[in-house]
């Protein structure tokens, strides 16, 4: 199996899907120049400018046009460039794409993918670093996935393209160059199926996206037998896997890069508590960002970053609790 970067893994997965299905196409800014992370490199040469569409800086129209094109039977991959820019297209995503099937009584479907590269990366500051997956999960109609390995970046993209529901892919900017082994012939991922990244007995640590490698490293150095669960998809999410693990370890930590307050970690903890009962867990914790925007200077950004040291410390604290 080749070792591929996230960018290359998704580039190859998209190309394979476009070869398989002529109705698949992609639209977004600078796609004809490879996209800003190289995840579309060379695709316009193979598929032409009608299927790798370089668009104006018109996020609302990129999103809305993707919907219109889906309603007539194509499968668009909508590139938002940076997740923060999707905020310029919230009506199109939240009130149009997510609602169209329901509101019209099943007459049409938005079978499309929205790619949102997000999170902290190279000191991009407050308007280019947000992790807004909790917003997405809150919207009925959307499927939300957040790959934490190169394999999943490819397999979830394939699954998203083949899914008849609209899928939002929260891709982590910080992972584009990270490498992992990728089986390019692997079947599309299954939404709602978590990956046990590391087996353990004392603490269950749930995470996704950019914090997956961070948590794996933290578990390694924590000196605690921590079970690491990479959720991979946030809606639907693998409640059963998390509940089973937490029932065994009786200690649950959720780690995410997003702001802790009303983050998806809150949902995970709430559901596990509902399922196991209030007294079932001996210790519970969430590790995310404080409720502050992401600052620019490396010294300031690092103050917010969920580093392996911080996560390891949280794991140890929980293990003692």
């Amino acid at each position, binding site marked *: 199996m080749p070792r591929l970067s996230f960018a290359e893994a998704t580039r190859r997965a998209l190309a394979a899907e476009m070869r398989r299905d002529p109705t698949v*196409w992609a639209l977004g800014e600078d796609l004809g120049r490879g996209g800003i992370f190289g995840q579309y490199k060379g695709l316009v040469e193979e598929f032409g400018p009608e299927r790798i569409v370089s668009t104006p800086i018109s996020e609302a129209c990129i999103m809305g046009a993707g919907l219109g094109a889906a*309603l*007539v039977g194509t499968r668009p991959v909508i590139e938002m460039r940076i997740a923060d820019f999707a905020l310029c297209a919230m009506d199109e995503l939240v*009130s149009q794409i997510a609602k169209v099937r*329901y509101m019209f*009584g099943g007459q049409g479907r938005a079978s499309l993918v929205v790619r949102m590269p997000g999170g902290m990366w190279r000191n991009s500051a407050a308007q280019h670093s947000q992790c807004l997956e909790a917003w997405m999960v809150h919207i009925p109609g959307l*499927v939300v996935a957040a790959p934490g390995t190169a394999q999943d970046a490819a397999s979830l993209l394939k699954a998203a393209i083949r899914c008849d*529901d609209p899928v939002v892919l929260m891709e982590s900017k910080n992972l584009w160059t990270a490498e992992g082994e990728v089986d390019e012939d692997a079947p599309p991922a299954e939404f*709602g199926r978590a990956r046990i990244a590391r087996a353990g007995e004392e603490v269950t640590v749930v995470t996704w996206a950019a914090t997956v490698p961070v948590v794996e490293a933290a578990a390694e150095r924590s000196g605690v037998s921590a079970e690491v669960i990479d959720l991979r998809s946030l*809606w639907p999410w693998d409640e059963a896997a998390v509940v089973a693990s937490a029932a065994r370890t009786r200690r649950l930590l959720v780690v995410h890069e997003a702001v802790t307050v009303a983050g998806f970690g809150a949902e995970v903890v709430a559901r596990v508590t509902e399922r196991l009962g209030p007294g079932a867990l001996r210790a519970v914790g969430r590790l995310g960002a404080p409720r502050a925007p992401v600052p620019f200077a490396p010294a300031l950004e690092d103050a917010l970053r969920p580093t392996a040291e911080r996560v390891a410390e949280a794991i140890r604290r929980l293990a003692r609790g």
Partner: protein
Amino acid sequence: MDPSPPPAGGPPPNETVRLLAMLRLMLRIRAFEREAVAAMRSGEAPGVVHASIGQEAIAAGVCLHLRREDRVTSTHRGHGHALAKGADARAMMLELYGRAGGACGGKGGSMHIADFAVGMLGANGVVGAGIPIACGAAQGLRLLRQDAVVACFFGDGAVNRGPFLEGLNWAALYRLPVLFVCEDNGFAAFTRTAESTAGAGAAARAEAIGVPALAVDGTDPLAVDAAAADLIAAIRAGAGPRLLHARCYRWEGHTGTDPAAYRPAEEVAAARARDPIRRLAEALIARGVAAAEIAALEAEAEAEMRAHREAARAAPLPDPAAAFADVQDTGAPAPCPA
């Protein structure tokens, strides 16, 4: 327009037949909306109804030049566009009443009326939201090598929203087969167009972006018909997008229960005197159509819509389980516990 009367005794010329179809459509739209407004006012139909009474010539004049495979995107004031594209009036009325068998299964109501089977891709509760959707529909159809055009209706209020700029630029850039139709009824909700829109308006803005535009009196059915014919022919010939700016007047309030006290009675009376339906009827009479034939068409339209309303009153309520259907297949919602 051909001013010569038809030969006595012979069949009416094609043009007369075509205009009669347009009149019939306009009469059906008006009759539907009269029933819809009455249903809202009486409380029989829940929620809100926005009527396009007085604007019928625009929906009819544009959609009569469309084919079944062409698509339409619409607005919160969308009954006329739906009927003009061939939507099922019975299913629409059931939808307004929130009954089983409604066009959207009771999930949409008036503001989200749709009939995908005839290419009506939906009314939209968000001003301007149909514009990017129309652009994408045209782009998708092109990718699928389907030869069809998209008519995109919006109100004058939409030209002050970003999607108008983004969508027109987009359509011009990719030379998409889209007819943008700005129905300028003089108001955006309770505010006059002139109080909210700087500059020379929709047509001038379109021209500035490179979308050729025509402005017409939208209460003159023959003018709308002729303009739509020209613009759609150019679009079909591959000339790229066009914009039709149709000035008209909203006879009713913003919603069925808005008394519209913000405008003088004389202004409304003057607008009603330019009734597009009467204007088309007069043009047809001048072409030799009997007034009785027109009266019969009107009675027929009214009877049809009355019957739909009766049927809606009598129709069963939707199964509550439908509230949980059609959200999504992957991660579908769990119904509320009983």
